[in-house]
């Protein structure tokens, strides 16, 4: 046994090694569901033994051997048929190639984001199998009971097994579709982390850091992919604002009112450089455009310095390649900033006929904002109130109600 390490170092090491070991096992044995259970047990064994006895000289080899043994035991107990047992014996675990394992994380991500799974299951499975988080940590992070997460994971593994999915890169033709699912899952993880703000969520595992870590791994593996780079840049440029997103009293602060001095300049520089390089070299995609939008905001020293003309141009592009109701509304805000609130209100009147926007509180929120810009304060207040009443987001409700109050400080209705 090698040197002793602090528990936190061991935890980090295990989380790095977990997908590598799982990748090696699945590459060797193909039965993802059993391998995943076996790796969890090996990690548990390491988490108890290593702090006491020291980290072995080859920790990845140690985990791989323990997990392989465990996998064979599980596999035997699952199918007692002699023929298969003999086969299992013949493929004893010692000959696993450790050299190739570093490259397995992409295959593992693709498997965890398999199209037969629901998004909630993809997220849970990715966090466990690739992120190396325990079921309890995932439950705390997602604010659902541990039993729910355990159920999602075991169900997901059964589905992967039933679908006959294999641990390998899909053919080139299908790859971009599969990769899109992976990016979507990592984006969900990132957004889930971004919601953590106060009180009940203080103890959430840092999903933002986890999403960025996995995104960096993916980017190392696929540096030429424009959307991979775009999503990494988007995460960096969004996360850089995190220190300014929450005020002292725990309320979330909208972009225009944030103290930009609190933004993380180094992360902004990294994200901006990445997206600038990517836009110049790769075919454009939605994540890249979102990142470019974030970069325009991040590079304005003050809210009033924001280059709205450029933002409007980017939204015109987003509207072409990835239209959606939120894109429509955000573009209308940009229209109002460039051409004035009346132009925005006219476009809003047309846009809200889209069924996807009918009854959406954000239409009221945008209308309130444009009415406030145009000086019609009573109407603005009414629409802020309406939006506050209809939103499902507590921070948004606080913000919208505060805007309404600010426009009518004497009105306690």
């Amino acid at each position: 046994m090698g040197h002793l390490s602090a528990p936190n170092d061991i935890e980090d090491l295990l989380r790095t090694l977990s997908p590598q070991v799982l990748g090696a096992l699945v590459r060797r044995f193909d039965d993802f569901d059993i391998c995943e259970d076996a790796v969890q047990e090996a990690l548990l064994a390491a988490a108890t033994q290593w702090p006491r006895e020291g980290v072995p000289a080859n920790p990845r080899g140690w985990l791989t051997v323990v997990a392989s043994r465990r996998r064979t035991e599980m596999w035997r107990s699952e199918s007692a048929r002699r023929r298969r047992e003999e086969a299992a014996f013949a493929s004893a675990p010692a000959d696993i190639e450790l050299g190739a394992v570093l490259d397995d994380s992409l295959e593992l991500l693709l498997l965890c984001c398999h199209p037969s799974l629901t998004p909630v299951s993809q997220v849970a499975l990715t966090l466990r199998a690739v992120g190396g988080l325990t079921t309890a940590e995932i439950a705390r992070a997602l604010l659902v009971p541990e039993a729910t997460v355990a159920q999602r994971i075991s169900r997901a593994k059964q589905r992967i097994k039933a679908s006959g999915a294999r641990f390998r890169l899909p053919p080139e033709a299908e790859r971009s579709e599969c990769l899109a699912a992976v990016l979507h899952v990592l984006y969900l993880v990132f957004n889930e982390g971004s919601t953590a703000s106060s009180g009940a969520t203080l103890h959430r595992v840092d999903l933002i850091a986890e999403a960025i870590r996995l995104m960096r791994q993916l980017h190392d593996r696929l540096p030429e992919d424009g959307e991979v780079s775009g999503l990494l840049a988007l995460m960096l440029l969004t996360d850089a604002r995190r220190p300014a997103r929450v005020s002292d009293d725990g309320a979330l602060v909208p972009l225009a009112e944030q103290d930009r001095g609190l933004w993380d300049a180094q992360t902004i520089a990294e994200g901006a450089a990445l997206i600038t390089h990517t836009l110049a070299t790769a075919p454009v995609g939605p994540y890249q455009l979102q990142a470019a939008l974030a970069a325009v905001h991040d590079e304005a020293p003050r809210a009033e310095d924001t280059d709205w003309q450029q933002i409007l141009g980017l939204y015109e592009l987003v509207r072409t390649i990835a239209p959606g109701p939120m894109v429509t509304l955000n573009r209308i805000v940009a229209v109002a900033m460039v051409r004035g609130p009346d132009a925005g209100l006219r476009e809003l009147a047309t846009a809200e006929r889209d069924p996807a926007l009918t009854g959406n509180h954000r239409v009221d929120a945008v209308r309130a904002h444009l009415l406030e810009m145009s000086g019609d304060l009573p109407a603005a207040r009414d629409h802020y109130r309406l939006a506050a009443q209809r939103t499902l987001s507590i921070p948004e409700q606080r913000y919208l109600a505060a805007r309404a109050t600010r426009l009518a400080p004497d009105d306690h209705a």
Partner: protein
Amino acid sequence: MKYLILIYSNPQSREIWNSFSRDQRAAGLRDYAALHESMVASGELIVSEALADPSLAKRVTSHEGQALVTDGPYAEVKEYLAGFFLLECPSMERAIEQAARIPEAAFGLVEVRAIMALDGWDI
């Protein structure tokens, strides 16, 4: 998104239940168990409970740090909350689809409420 499915009880639904034979009741409970099981299997169920009779409810009033407890006001109420499912699912449409499978939905006694969340901040 999280949704709370509320199941109410009223005199009509209680009368129907009381008129059931033993077999019918057993079948009804099996339907509930199957519904519960399928929500667990889909990973959507967070928690589900049945509430005790409203005559057992207590109303609590705090006054200067002291709790004053009175019997619930519900003993005479004809329609009351009888149980709930808390689900996590992608949309209100999906929550409604699940709610429609609850037997009480046949009597208009099932309600779906969206849960407020800490996310959705993109103004």
